[in-house]
C-alpha cells in the first residue's frame, strides 16, 4: 500500500481527508483509484500536478511505478526560469 498525501489545496475534493493508503502499481492507476474514492480528483491530479514519490519529484509521471510503502505527494507543476 502506498501512502498518499493531499496538500491543503486538494482537500476540498477529498472532504478534508489529508492522507489515504492506496494500492496501485503505477501513478496512472493510483490516480484512477483515488478518483473512485474522491470523484473529480482524477482530472485535477492528472492535469495540474507533478508527483513526488519517496521524495523524488517527477513530471509526466503517469507510468512511474509506485513501490510498496511509497510516500506519494501531488504537487503543482513547477516552472523554472
Amino acid at each position: 500500500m502506498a501512502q498518499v498525501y493531499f496538500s491543503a489545496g486538494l482537500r476540498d475534493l477529498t472532504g478534508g481527508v489529508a492522507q489515504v493508503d492506496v494500492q496501485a502499481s503505477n501513478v496512472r492507476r493510483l490516480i484512477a483509484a483515488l478518483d473512485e474514492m474522491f470523484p473529480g480528483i482524477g482530472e485535477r491530479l492528472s492535469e495540474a500536478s507533478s508527483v513526488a514519490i519517496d521524495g523524488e519529484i517527477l513530471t509526466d509521471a503517469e507510468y512511474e511505478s509506485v513501490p510498496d510503502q511509497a510516500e506519494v505527494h501531488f504537487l503543482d507543476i513547477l516552472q523554472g526560469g
Partner: protein
Amino acid sequence: MALTEENPGYKWVGTRPIRPDGLDKVTGKAQFGADLTLPGMLFGKVVRSPHAHARILSIDTSAAESMLGVKAVITGSDFPDLAANGAHASDIDVANNAIARDKVLYEGHVVAAVAATTRELAEAAAKAVEVSYEILPHVLTVDEAMADNAPLLHENMITKGVDPAPDQPSNVASRIVHERGDLEQGFGEADVVIEREFTTKPVHQGYIEPHAAVADANNDGRANIWCSSQGHFAMRAYTATVLGVSQGTLKVTAAEIGGGFGGKTVIYLEPLAVRLSQRSGRPVKLVMDRDEVFRATGPTSGTRIKVKMGISNGGELTAAEVWMAFEAGAYAGSPVGAAGMTVIAAYDIPHFLVEGYDVVCNKPRVAAYRAPGAPMAAFAVESVLDELARSIDMDPIEVRLANAAVEGTQASYGPKFPRIGFVETLEAIKEHPNYTAELGPNQGRGVAAGFWFNAGMNSSATVHVNENGTATVVTGSPDIGGSRQSMALMAAEELGIPYESIKPVVADTETVGFNDVTGGSRVTLATGAAVVDACRLVIEDLRARAAKTWDVEIDQVEWVDGQAQHVDGSQPPLSLNALAAKSGRTGGPISANASLNARGVGAGFSTQLCDVEVDPETGVTRVVRYLTAQDAGRAISPDYVEGQMQGGVVQGIGWGLNEEYIHDENGAMENPSFLDYRMPVASDLPMIECSIVEVPNPAHPYGVRGVGEVGIVPPMAALANAIKDATGVRLTDLPMTPIKVLEALNEQSD
C-alpha cells in the same frame, strides 16, 4: 573547492578549460538572433497598444498597405481563433498574448505588424496603421485588481482553489494553500511573534539582447525560423499553436542567445514573423527595440506579502503564517505557486499556513525570472527571520542552523527531503573570514538563505564518433550559460578521450530529438544525463566491436581511459581511434542516441553574506563585500558554476536596490530604457566571492544539482538585513532606493 565530499579523481569534470563557443564570442563571429540576414529579407515592425486596457473598435491597414516598400500587414484576424476551436485555456492565452483580438490588456500589447523593404519604411508603415480604441478602466497592482468593483480583465474568470467557488468573476485567477498543524497552538508556543508586510515591484529579467526572429516561409505552409530562445522546441510548439498548424511544418534553429533568465522561454515575435513571411513571400526579420522589450515582454510579478512567524527563546521556529498576492499581468500564471512551495521550505516548522493568490492586472503577462516566485517570498521570510533572531539575540547563521531542513525533513510542500546541502552552505559562510571581517562606520552585515527545486524534464542527445576517434555531442538545449562546455566535459569523462576531441553542438528541431527549455536549472542535470547515457551506449558498442576484433565475449572487454582493454591483458588495447577507423568492418558507423525524462533532480540551497555601507546623507547603499555559498552537488564546470552564482547575486542586488517598473496613471511605463531602469554596472559592485559547496546529489551519476537559479533568491533579504544592521531601519518595500532609505532614517530620528 569541495567542502564536504572528496574529489573522486575525475580527469575532466571539475576542470576549467576554455569553452568551445568562446572563440566565436570574443571575435564577434557568433550569430545571435538579430545577426542573420537572408537574401530578399524584409524588416518587420510591430504595432502596439498605447492603452493599458481597451476594446479594439477597428483597425484600418489600408494606408500602411499602400505605402512604398510595404509587402505585408497583419492583424489578429490573420490568426485562428483558438477559443472558437475549443483549445486549452492556456493555449488561448498564449495566442491572445501574441496578438490581440477584441481587447488589448496592457500597454504594448500587439495589435498589428508590418513588413517592408527597409527598417525606416517598416517604421513609417507601422505608424500608418490606424487603430481606434474604446478605452476601458484599468488596474495596475494587486491592491487595485483585488478591490471591490475592480474593472475586470476577463469577464469569465472565476477564482480556482476556493471552496465554495465564487459566483462572481474577479481578477483573481487562483488561490494556492499549504497547511500543517495548528497555527494557534504554534503561535501560542512562541516566545516572540513578529508580523511584517512587504511589497515588491515588477522587475525585468534585463537580458541585453532584445527578442529577435527571422522567419522564411514557403508557400506550401512550411517555414524556417531562426530565433534566440531558451528552447527552440518550445518555440516551435507555441508558434504552431498560435498559427494553427502542425509542428512538423516548422523548423526552428537556435541562434546564440544573449541572455534569457526565463524571459525567453515564451514566444513573442515568432508567429508574427512567420505570418508576415507567408503573406509577403519573403523572409522577414523582426527585432524588438529596448522600449518594446520593457513595455511588452514579461517582467516578473510585483507582490504584496504578509508574514507572521513565531520563535522560542531557544531559537526554534514554532509557527509561520504567509499571505501572498502576485501580479500575473494580463493573463493568469504568476509564479505564486512556486512562491508558496518555496517560501518556508528551507526550514522545519511544525505549524504553518501559506496562502497565495494569482491576480491579473493590466500589465504585460509575466514571464519566468530565475527561480520564479522564490526571491519575493524569501525577501519576506528571511527579513522576518532576521528580526526574530535579533529579538532573541541569536546569531543569524545559528538561528538558521537550528531550524534548517535536512535529509528526512518533511518539506512544507509535502515530500521528505532526500540528501540536501543547506546546512553545509550555512557552515561555509560561518567559517569564512568575511563573517568576522571588521565593519567600518555606517556599515552593516546581513545574512539570508534561499532554496530552489530545480527541474528535470525531457532531453535528448546523440553522440557520434568520427572516423578519427574524436566525437560530436549533439543536444537541443540552447546554451545560455556555458552548458556546451559541461556536455563536453562529461562526454570526455565518460569516453575517456580529451575534452578538446569533443565538439558539442546545439542542433535544430529537425536534427536532434526533443528537448524541453533551457531553464529551471536543468540542463547540466537532464541534458547531461542524456549525454552520459548516449556515451555509455557508445561504450557498450565499442566494447562489442573490440570483442569482435579479438574474437572474445563482450564480458572480456573493459573500457578504460579511452581504450578497450582485455580483462586479463592478453590483447594489446584498442584505442577509440583504432576502433573508429575500422568501424565499417565491425558493424558500421558508431553513434548512439539517448532520450529521457530526467530522474534524480536535486534541490539547491544558497546562503549569502552581504556587507553594505549606507551613506546617511544621500541614502545610497553601497555593497562593500559579498559572499555566496551554494550547493552545486558536483561542479562539472567550476568557472561557469561561479558565473551562475555571481550573475544571480547581481541581479538580486539590482532588484533589491534600484530596479522597478514605474507606471503613470494611464498604465504606461515611464522608464522603459536602461537609463531609467537602473541595473547594476561594474562600478556599483565589489568582487562577488564564491564558495562552491559540493554535497553530491546521490541520484545523479555525477552528483549534479542545478545551479542557475537559486543564487537570485537570497540577495534582497541579505541587503535588507545588512541595511538594518548598518542603520537600524527595516525596509519592507523594494527597491530600497536612496529616497526610501532617507525617509526611513528621517522617520527613525523623529
